[in-house]
Every structure is written in structure tokens, then in C-alpha cells.
């Protein structure tokens, strides 16, 4: 899977690059409009991460150029502005998603996986870890062949672990990804513990081979 990051902030570009490389993506970067345009014209990518404000132009211009070439690369707009207008304009120009800075890397990964999956026409792609299979299109979870009944939040929670098994998922990332802005009301993130407990109980009842491992007080790993 090839990803292009068009981002003028070198630090942010680096951290995104090394994270995605850690997730086994092939990552290329461009730091301004011209180099971004050159790369988009000459190569195909599975996913393009576009910053809006770029030296020499805007991400929106790049996006419309890209569509003029007749390319269908998946595009996620990454912007510091988070304004309704930008979001609407980006999506109208054919962006697949819109992510506001600052974001959690886990969230970025989840978005990339979702749009790449949506674009690929190889039918339903299940995410599998050990004997647990997750079908994102149908929001269905199987343990072996048994279907596990999960509510919306439990499914979202499991999805975040399934896309990065055996990696630490922090409580803050989870809270924000699953509960969004509603999460900031909870003074501590203890409520996640009770959600994880429910999820673990449901998976256990189907004799799943996976389990959640608490990593100190910081987060959990799916093992």
C-alpha cells in the first residue's frame, strides 16, 4: 500500500511517515504544491493525505488537479482549520474523508484503512486477528464461526484494537475515537475500563483466543 503525504510542516510529516511505515505502508512525502503535483501526476497512490495550506497553492487545488488527471486515488484532507466550509468543499471536490488537526495516529490509521478498503473492489475484506474476524461493511464480528452481538460502541472499540493488534492503544485515543467530543466530559477515563470489561466478557463467552491486556494505567493491547 502506497501513501503520499503532502504536508509542509516537516515535523508532522516525519511523525506521520514513521508511524505509517511502522504499519507497513510505503510512504512518500511532498512538502509543497509543486512537488505534490509532480508526484501525483507521475505515480499512483492508494491514499493521499493532503494538507490544505501549502507553499505555492492549496490542497484543494491539488485535489482538483488530481481529479482532472482522471485519477481516483483516495484522498484524506488533513487540515488545521476544521471549518464546515472546508469540509464541504473538500468532499465536493472528491475527497474521501476530512481529518482535523490535531488527530491521534490511531485515528489516522483507522481512516486510511477505511477508505482504502472502501475503494478496493475485492469484496468484503475481513480484518482478522487470531480467531476473531471483523467485517467492517456489515459491522459484524465472528469468533470462529459464531457471531458476537456487539452494540455500536463495543464494535467501534474492538475495531480500533483489531486494526492494530498487539499494539498499545491509549485510553485517550480510544475515548476520542469512539466517544468523540462527548468524552471530554469524563474527568478520568475510567469509564473505558467498564466498556473493555463488557467487551472482554462477550468475547470470552464465545471462547475467543484474544484478550485485552492492560498496559499499566495507560491503555490496552489486544493480544
Amino acid at each position, binding site marked *: 500500500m502506497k501513501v503520499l503525504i503532502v504536508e509542509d510542516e516537516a515535523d508532522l510529516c516525519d511523525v506521520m511517515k514513521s508511524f505509517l511505515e511502522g504499519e507497513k505502508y510505503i510512504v512518500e512525502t511532498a512538502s509543497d504544491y509543486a512537488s505534490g503535483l509532480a508526484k501525483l501526476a507521475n505515480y499512483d497512490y492508494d491514499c493521499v493525505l493532503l494538507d490544505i495550506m501549502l507553499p505555492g497553492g492549496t490542497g484543494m487545488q491539488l485535489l482538483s488537479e488530481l481529479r482532472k488527471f482522471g485519477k481516483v486515488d483516495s484522498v484524506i484532507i488533513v487540515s488545521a482549520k476544521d471549518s464546515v*466550509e472546508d469540509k464541504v468543499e473538500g468532499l465536493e471536490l472528491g475527497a474521501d474523508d476530512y481529518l482535523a*488537526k490535531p488527530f491521534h495516529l490511531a485515528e489516522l490509521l483507522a481512516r486510511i484503512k477505511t477508505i482504502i478498503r472502501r475503494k478496493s473492489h475485492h469484496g468484503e475484506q475481513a480484518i482478522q486477528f487470531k480467531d476473531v474476524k471483523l467485517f467492517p461493511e456489515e459491522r459484524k464480528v465472528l469468533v470462529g464461526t459464531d457471531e458476537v452481538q456487539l452494540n455500536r460502541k463495543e464494535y467501534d472499540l474492538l475495531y480500533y484494537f483489531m486494526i492494530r493488534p498487539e499494539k498499545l492503544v*491509549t485510553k485517550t485515543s480510544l475515548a476520542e475515537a469512539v466517544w468523540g467530543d462527548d468524552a471530554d466530559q469524563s474527568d478520568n477515563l475510567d469509564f473505558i475500563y467498564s466498556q473493555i470489561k463488557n467487551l472482554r466478557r462477550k468475547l470470552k463467552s464465545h471462547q475467543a483466543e484474544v484478550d485485552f491486556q492492560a498496559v499499566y494505567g495507560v491503555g490496552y493491547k489486544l493480544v
Partner: protein
Amino acid sequence: MQVSLKNYTLRYLSIAFLIIITIWAALFYAFILEEVYDNVDDGLKNQKILILREVYEHPELLETNKYGINQFRITPVGDEDDFSEENYLDNEFFYMPYDDEMEPYRVLRTGFYAPDQKPYHLEIRTSTVEEDDLILNLTTALIVLYLVLVLGVYLINELVLRRAWRPFRIILENLNLYRFGKKEDLQPVSTNIVEFNQLDEEINRMWKRNEEVFDEQKRFIENAAHELQTPLAVTINKLEMLMEDESLTESQLTQLANSKSSLRRLVNLNKALLMLSRIENKQYKDVKRISLNHIIEEISSDFQDFLSFKDITLEIETHGNFDVSMNKDLAVVLISNLFRNAIRYNIKGGKIIVNIRQNHLLVANTGNQVILNREKIFNRFHKGTQDSQSNGLGLAIVKSIVDTYPELSIDYRFEKNMHVFSLEKIR
């Protein structure tokens, strides 16, 4: 006591008129009387000369000892002592058959020696002005004059000043109607009165200045918040990368997690500030008919996890529909902020009552028993006593959304041991 400007001047004018007319009347009366007596006295002295001449020619006139038709009398002097040839003038009252009453007369008393060398008293009288009648008439005339003057001034005030102050009332009305950045509803002030034009110009200039300062401040907040986003993104993401390191000890990892969590608060604060400036910049333009009942239904399920975690019972009592024309996103933010507030400041095992009636919504929650300051809780960064996690902007956002729609109003009260927020549609 407050009085209108035109009545205010009238009050002082009527007092001034009264004083001026009184002083003028006193002087006028004195001068007139002086003149009248002067004339009468001259006439009497002239008559005295004529009478004395006649007496010398016709001594039988010495017998005239009664005022008859002659208006004089001559009496012989009995006692030598009180004889004098000097003129004495005096006012006296005599009976007048015409009026059937005593009337004032001017009397000249003098003495003379007749041709027979005997001294005689001579008294000449003439009818003169009735002073009390004069005063009465003068007073009546002046009271009428005074009333006419005051009434005249009053009418002129009413007619002229009402016209003249019309632009002033328009300016007042405009000040009342003025809402920040909104001038469409205001009436133009068109007048040829210099002062009012100046006033209107100055007010407009002041509005403009204030709006500029405010806009600048808003832009500053917005830009500052935007500029913070990228460094925050870099820092948070780098911390996340660091936390991937398997060799970290518990304390290192915990410290990283704490830093990340603090940064998250900063991110939320930033988001809230941006949200506020977006609301104030009227960036949520798309207005639709929204059923708050539906939104409450949707949102309450989103909050289920938090409710059950804190063991809070949520009761939704629906007695009617609350429909309002507003932006859907803002409606969601409005209701979720009220919910979030009701959950955050609740106690474990507490209660939230949501009461929906037509054009009226109540969100009541249990919590600590300290009554909040209803003047201040909607202010930015106003923090209650015991919350360190709140960014102090949740209710400010609520207020700002409510203020965007003039028909909505929000209020707080403490009732039956619950904190009650009530949202109302006025029209």
C-alpha cells in the same frame, strides 16, 4: 422623578414667568398710582387758585360749608392754633349715592384769609381711583396673561420640540435595536439639526470602532487557535510514537500518557474557542426546522455509557414538541453541552430530569448543593468551585448559540435541590 425635557424647561419657565410678572406688576402699579395722584393733586391745586379768586370776588361763597355740587367747602377756623396756609393732601372716603357705598376721594386741605381778614379752612375733594379695584383688575389681567404665556410655551414645546426631538427619539430607538454587527433594522436619521447629526455620527463611529476592536480580537483568538493546531498535532503524535516503544517502564509510560492527556485538554480548549468564534462569525448558516425532541432522543443514547458509568438515572418527560428553526449542528452542540454539563456536575447515583413541553425545555440535575451564580455561569472561563477538568467554555458555547437566535433564551435556577437549565422559545 424623571421628567421629559420639554416639561423640564416648562417647569422653570413657568416659575420664571411668575417672578417676572409679579415684579413687573408691582412696579407698574407703583408708577401708575404715582402718576394718577400727581395729576389729581395738580388739578386740586389749580382748583384752589380758582376758588380763592372767586371767593374774593363773591364773598357770599364763604357760606359754602358743605360739599354740594361744588366739591369744596369753606369753614371758619374756630381755634387759631391749627390754622395753616400750607396744602395738605390726603385720601378719604365719602359716601357716593351712585355706587351706594364709600368711595375714595383725594382731598386738599388748606387755610386762607378771606377779604374780611378772618382765617378759613378750605377743603377741596375729587373722586379718585379705587386702589383695591385697580389691584384686583390688574391681578386678574396678569393671571390671564400668565396662563396664556405658560399655555403658549407648553403648546410650542409640544409642537415644535416634538418635531425637533424626533431624530433624537429615532437615535434612541436605534440604540435600543442595535445588535452587534446588525444595522439592517435601524432607521436612518435624517435631520437638519446639527447636534443630532453629530450625535448620530458619533454613535455610528463608536459602533464601528467597537466592532473593529471586537473583530480583531475574534480574529486573534481564531488565528491563535489555528496556529496552535499544528504544533499540538506534532507533539501529540510524537508522544504517541514514543509510547509505542516496548521498552518503556511504567512510570515513563504513565508520564507520557499524562502529558498526552494534558495536551488533549489543550486541544479541547482550542476546539471550544474555535467553535465559539465560528458561532459568533455566523458560520453556521444553514437553518432548518429542527425538532429538539428528536435531537434529545439521539443524544441521550450517545451519553448512555457515561450515565451508566456514573450510575445516573435519566428521566425524559415529554409533554409536547419543541420545534425551532436553527442550524442542526448547533442544535446538537447546544443539547449535548447541556447534557454534558448535567452529567459532569452530577453525583454518583444522581438524577437528570429532562422535561420537554411546547417551546420549553428543562434540563435538571442533582449535584452539589451550592447554588450557582446565574449572572456568571454563562460567562467564558467562569469556573465553579471544584472542577479542574472543565475548560469553562461549555455553557459559554450554549449561551453563544442561544444568542445567535433571538427567539431563544436560556436561564438557570436552583429548584427542589436540583440545578435547572431552562431553554425557552419566546416567539
